[in-house]
């Protein structure tokens, strides 16, 4: 058997070499499918990695409370998306945040609410600017660098805002003389007290692009909008040793204040890094599905070319059978050829995918993310594609009648 396998391998190699263009195009079909899967997996991995490093930068004392069920199943995610949750009340409220802040275990508590609104300055007006509502504790939890001015404090919070660097440039065409100027949001005037330094990462666990955002007190935001949806509560623990205990305490405290409803989740450590937005999961899932479809199309290409190859080589199949090849020998010969085509395509795709991921990393902050799991998934997928789409032509070749095949002229 090993001798035969080696022979099949050699035969497949010869046949692929003989039909170079055709084999290359078939491989390309598989390669594009694999490359897109690699690209998406690599992007997902690098986003998770980015958030992970950010969490570890912030320190090991971070606890995050997010609304929705603690058991985040797929149906929950779909419900969240389909039930137009914009109009749904977030399960977290400012009183929850206050309750957590009152606990001895917590050093700083910053609820986060986001909104988008039109912002006017003396020079420009910008629609749909992301606004982040939080408390003065925010700066204690996230290591934000301010370029100019200060973050708002509990004393001056009601009339103050902090601008992201890009936003400051957009509104006032400058960053160094922005402090002290006023911006208008829904008719209310706010004074700029600080401008943030450029943030290195555009993705973080708050899901806010701080460079483009305006940060203001959450109560003021509540006041001008009428209501706010708290998207998460960031908590700095008083001590890092018993993070799990503190998280449990927060959980039970919140449960008490919500009269037993557990419609929130408490995360700490690496689980924060788990992409917070369910939309992210859905979108990347959809992308992966599209990539999988292109892989299927590639597989159909393999099947097509194998069927052509079987038809072309009917005479050869007849000769081989006449000199003693069994149907199984013929089956293996053609299956091997399909497998080699698809695995070769997989290897091309792996290289192509990482090349694309690398090119993407030049213009975006997503570093290519390589893991043996991704490579193993690729290999197994292409192997499966090869078998699934190669078996039918191989069976067709194997079941050919030798006498008829010998009559078949090349």
């Amino acid at each position: 058997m090993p001798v035969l396998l080696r022979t099949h391998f050699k035969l497949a190699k010869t046949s692929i070499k003989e039909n170079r263009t055709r084999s290359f195009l078939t491989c390309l079909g598989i390669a594009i499918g694999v490359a897109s899967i690699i690209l998406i997996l690599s992007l997902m991995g690098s986003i998770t990695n980015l958030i992970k490093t950010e969490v570890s930068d912030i320190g090991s004392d971070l606890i995050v409370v997010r609304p929705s069920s603690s058991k985040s199943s797929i149906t929950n995610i779909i419900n969240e998306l389909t039930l137009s949750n914009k109009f749904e009340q977030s399960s977290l409220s400012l009183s929850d945040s206050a309750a957590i802040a009152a606990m001895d275990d917590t050093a700083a508590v910053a609820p986060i609410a986001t909104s988008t609104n039109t912002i006017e300055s003396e020079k420009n007006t910008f629609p749909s600017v992301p606004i982040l509502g939080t408390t003065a504790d925010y700066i204690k939890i996230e290591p934000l660098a301010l370029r100019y001015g200060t973050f708002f404090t509990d004393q001056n919070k009601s009339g103050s805002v902090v601008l992201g660097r890009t936003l400051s440039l957009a509104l006032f065409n400058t960053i160094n003389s922005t402090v002290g100027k006023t911006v208008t949001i829904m008719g209310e005037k706010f004074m700029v007290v600080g401008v943030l330094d450029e943030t290195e990462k555009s993705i973080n666990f708050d899901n806010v692009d701080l460079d483009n955002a305006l940060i203001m007190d959450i109560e003021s935001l509540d006041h001008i909008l009428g209501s706010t949806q708290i998207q998460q509560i960031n908590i700095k623990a008083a001590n890092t040793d018993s993070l799990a205990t503190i998280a449990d305490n927060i959980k039970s405290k919140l449960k008490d204040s919500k009269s037993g409803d557990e419609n929130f989740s408490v995360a700490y450590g690496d689980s924060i890094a788990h992409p917070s937005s369910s939309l992210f999961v859905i979108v990347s899932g959809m992308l992966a599905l599209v990539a999988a479809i292109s892989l299927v199309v590639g597989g159909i290409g393999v099947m097509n070319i194998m069927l052509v190859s079987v038809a072309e080589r009917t005479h050869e199949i007849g000769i081989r059978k006449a000199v003693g090849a069994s149907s199984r020998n013929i089956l293996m010969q053609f299956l091997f050829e399909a497998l080699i085509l698809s695995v070769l395509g997989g290897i091309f795709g792996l290289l192509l995918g990482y090349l694309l991921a690398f090119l993407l990393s030049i213009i975006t902050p997503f570093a290519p993310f390589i893991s043996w799991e991704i490579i193993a998934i690729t290999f197994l997928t292409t192997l499966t594609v090869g078998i699934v789409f190669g078996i039918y032509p191989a069976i067709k070749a194997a079941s050919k009648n030798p006498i008829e095949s010998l009559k078949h002229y090349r």
Partner: protein
Amino acid sequence: MEKEVSENILIELKGLTKRYGYGDTESFALKDFDLTIKRGEFIMIMGPSGCGKTTLLNIIGLLDRASYGEYMLNGEDVASISAQRQARLRAKKIGFIFQDFNLIEDLPIIENVALPLVYTGYSKTSRLKNASSTLKRFHLDEREYYFPYQLSGGQQQRVAIARAIVGNPEIILADEPTGNLDSRSSHIVMEELKSIHEEGNTIIMVTHNPSLTTYATRVINMLDGQIDTDVKTVADHNLPQPISVKIEKRKAAPEVILGDIEPTEKDKRKKHRRSK
């Protein structure tokens, strides 16, 4: 004595019938066909087109199955064995020679010759060695890496004959091997077949050319799927015999040096189990 005779019987066909179609379209390529072939015979089968010659050859060569009837090969009933076993017997015991050579165009002739050995489990080196020494016998050793289209018809047919005998089969089946050749090439090919026959091989050949019957030890004329005339031109005792001795001789000094067959994993396991 009795036993020796039966040992010399290679092929026994009894009541062999091959039917095509049903009802109105029913026709018989072979009808109640009986034939006994001894080792060392050189049989020529003649007859008009459509008399069942090729069907007979295909059934003997295990490429086709009879509708019903008995086929004993070496005393073993092979009429109803699995396709897998038929393939193995084809690889080991039967060599085919065709009218239109049927070489694989994409392979150099040495690999064409080595083809049957692929399916009997020889390693690549021993395959090529055997193919090379067989080609040498047909004076084609300088063209090992030529492709079939680079050879003349006669040369191609000699390659095909080399392929048929490379695995040392017991039966060589030739379907009009000279049909596509000019008389000079025909002569050369027939001389090669003759010398193969003289080594004790059994040859069954289909032909349309009556002048070739001089090479045969037995001429069978077929008509409508049955034997019309059956003439032995050489008495049984004058066949290249005793074949058993010939076989012994061949085993002692093989015409073709065959390498060791690498035992398959299955065989190894079997051996292991047996030794336990």
